């Protein structure tokens, strides 16, 4: 029953994507750990970390696509969920440092010691346990999303208004986390991690392990998202995206459907953030910045909104481009990036996968029929 549920959403694209992920999950460990460092097949830890980061972003993009592509909620604050998940993981990693901090304080992280904190704030308790942190990784973003969505969807805040208040949410969080009084490291955030579950975070094998965990999480997220989208619930969501009030007259409480997708998406983003932190080695409030959220939106748009595989592709491609250009064209890369966004919106309104689909089924007549009547009647 459950297998059936999870398999029902998988199509050809999913097959390709999951195959790629499976190959990565095998090839990367082999290439990183099983080859000599001077072999042409060797992958450096740098590359592994980089790939891991891209895949975390891919999971974030996937979660964003779930709400934007399938429910029509353009979130300009998804980085908030991602970062909260990251902080939950970061707090666990901080507690794991224990007395290996520079001051040798077993309880307090370094930044608290030199700012004269005397005891651990209450919200830090429990984070020394991995299971607790793992729950918080999903629970904190999930609860925030639930509370936010509960109010916003009930009040029928939609469209641009919703986008802007999601932006206000992440901006407010950013300002709050910048405050040193929050006890979360202020601008410096959480960093200098030592170990995760007893493994040295710097070790190549741990990095590979984290990478594989990210691959698994992305694959699981993808399977879950496609199952949700393919279910009747997914059909309701798409219906909400296209004609919300009509769905209400069919007797569906659209608020609840949106809330479900929104909260699920936030939890996925939280997991992405949690996997991101040990791989990049730092979490700090600038991740909350509205620009990060907008960038995530752009990955989705580049890959193809509403396609699930597209955002994964988009996130990897855009970030690969960013890594490449910040080194190759340090003075000009913003032109390249900015130009890319303009060109994609102008010439690839449905993203790369959308273009591929268009080229494949070449049925222009169908497309025009889809769009026209609604537009004309709208006046």
């Amino acid at each position, binding site marked *: 029953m459950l297998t059936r549920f999870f398999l029902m959403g998988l199509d050809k694209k999913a097959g390709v994507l999951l195959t790629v992920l499976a190959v990565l999950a095998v090839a990367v460990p082999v290439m990183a750990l099983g080859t000599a460092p001077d072999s042409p097949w060797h992958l450096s830890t740098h590359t592994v970390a980089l790939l891991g980061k891209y895949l975390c972003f891919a999971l974030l993009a996937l979660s964003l696509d779930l709400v934007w592509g399938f429910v029509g909620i353009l979130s300009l604050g998804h980085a908030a969920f991602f970062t909260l998940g990251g902080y939950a993981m970061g707090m666990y990693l901080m507690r794991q440092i224990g007395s290996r901090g520079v001051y040798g304080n077993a309880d307090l992280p370094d930044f608290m010691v030199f700012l004269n904190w005397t005891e651990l704030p209450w919200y830090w308790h429990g984070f020394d346990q991995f299971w607790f942190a793992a729950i918080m990784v999903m629970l904190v973003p999930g609860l925030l999303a639930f509370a936010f969505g509960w109010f916003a969807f009930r009040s029928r805040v939609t469209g641009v208004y919703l986008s802007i208040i999601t932006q206000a949410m992440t901006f407010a969080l950013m300002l709050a986390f910048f405050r040193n009084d929050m006890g979360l490291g202020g601008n410096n955030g959480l960093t200098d991690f030592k170990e995760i579950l007893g493994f040295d975070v710097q070790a190549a094998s741990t990095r590979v392990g984290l990478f594989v965990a990210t691959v698994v999480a992305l694959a699981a997220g993808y399977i879950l998202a496609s199952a949700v989208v393919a*279910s*009747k*619930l997914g*059909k309701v969501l798409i219906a909400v995206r296209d*004609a919300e009030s009509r769905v*209400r*007259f*069919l*007797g569906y409480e659209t608020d609840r459907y949106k809330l479900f997708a929104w909260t699920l998406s936030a939890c996925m983003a939280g997991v992405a953030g949690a996997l991101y932190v040990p791989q990049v080695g730092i979490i700090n409030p600038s991740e909350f910045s509205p620009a990060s959220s907008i960038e995530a939106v752009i990955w989705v748009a580049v890959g193809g909104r509403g396609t699930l595989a597209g955002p994964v592709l988009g996130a990897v491609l855009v970030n690969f481009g960013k890594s490449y250009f910040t080194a190759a064209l340090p003075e000009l890369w913003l032109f390249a990036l900015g130009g890319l966004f303009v060109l994609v919106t102008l010439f690839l309104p449905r993203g790369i996968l959308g273009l591929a689909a268009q080229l494949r089924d070449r049925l222009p007549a169908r497309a025009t029929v889809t769009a026209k009547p609604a537009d004309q009647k709208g006046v």
Partner: protein
Amino acid sequence: MSTEDTLLYLDGVSVSFDGFRALNSLSLVIEPGEMRAIIGPNGAGKTTMMDVITGKTRPDTGTILFEGRTDLTSLREPAIANLGIGRKFQRPTVFEMHTVWDNLELSLKAPRRPLKTLTYSATREDRARIEEILDITRLSPRRDRPAGSLSHGEKQWLEIGMLLAQDPKLLLVDEPVAGMTDAETEQTAHLLKDIAGKHSVIVVEHDMVFVRELGVKVTVLHEGSVLAEGSLDTVSANKQVIDVYLGR
């Protein structure tokens, strides 16, 4: 007749938008199994009346009771729909990205809670019912096409099919034959008459030929309240009605 026996009971319902009175102390009673045609010039309040019944608009004053006991004025749209009130819009509104089949499946009477729909899979009866509706609405050949690719008339029928799938006690049908050919209009009239046996129907329509075809009790709305009620012939003979329609 007591209110308990009615299916829909409106009494003294008024709505204003920015000082404009769209409904002015409107009263209307629909009995179970009844089909009613509502006519009236533009701005008479026909669509607002539907909005008020389905929960889209809250009335300023007045009572709306469903089945004589449920107060509709305090409920939201989905709750009202789940009581058994279905609505077809003036402008055909279907889910364009979904196939015809999916449109019907979404409308089909089934649990509406998110977790139920997440694990839903169509039973044999569900499929049979959808097939049946496809036959009735003559959309069988188009079942796998996206609804967006249907012609205008087909969309009207699909929406009626969605209403049927919902299996409501009361159907609110807003201008079902707008943009249809004469033949289609006639078929639609037959379809609605078939439905009327098992359900109550309120039809709003401009097309007098169609209304005559239906041959049911007619209510004339004007400036947000009932001007006349009776058979089409009776109301057409009503002097006030003639004045309103001819603008005298």
